[in-house]
């Protein structure tokens, strides 16, 4: 990475640092929070904004390397934006159903 121009390297570096901090905070929240429904929230921070930052940095670097706009990383962004709410909703429904069934079996 010696010939990369500064207009691509500086924003990519800042975006990568922001994404790393967001992912680490989200994983800490996943370990530390006490309840499952509370634990569902923090990883979404890393998987939406963190993934967006990494993908914008990837677009910047690959465009600067190729010398033309390379935007195929937008596919992953689009895919994550579509699938993250579906995953969260299905997991929350499964958790609600399982906790209700457990209380029903107890009494």
């Amino acid at each position, binding site marked *: 990475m010696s010939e990369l121009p500064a207009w691509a390297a500086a924003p990519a570096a800042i975006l990568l640092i922001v994404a790393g901090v967001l992912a680490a905070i989200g994983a800490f929240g996943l*370990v530390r929070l006490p309840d499952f429904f509370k634990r569902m929230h923090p990883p979404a921070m890393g998987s939406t904004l963190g993934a967006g930052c990494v993908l914008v940095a990837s677009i910047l670097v690959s465009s600067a390397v190729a010398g033309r706009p390379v935007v*195929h990383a937008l596919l992953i962004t689009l895919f994550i934006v579509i699938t993250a709410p579906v995953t969260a909703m299905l997991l929350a*429904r499964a*958790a609600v159903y399982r906790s209700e069934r457990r209380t029903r079996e107890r009494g």
Partner: protein
Amino acid sequence: MNGLLAFAVTFASLCFALALLLAAVRLFKGPAAQDRVLALDVMYINGMLLLLVLGIRSMSSAYFDMALLIALFGFVSTVALAKFLLRGEVIEP
């Protein structure tokens, strides 16, 4: 400026590795099955981001296809596991 990018790539890789480790802790410790499924989903996302950061470091576009495949398989496996927890079957008759 490229030294800054090298530092940022290393820092982001270490952060994603730390996130993978913490998700693995939740995967082993999680009291219920849905905690483990959530930790697996987080591990998929963080592994995909780690692959993209490695692609930035080596400046090749080969990592992009792997990242897309990991995102795809992560979504499918998480949906299948959540459906299994919900109903007891993945594909209902």
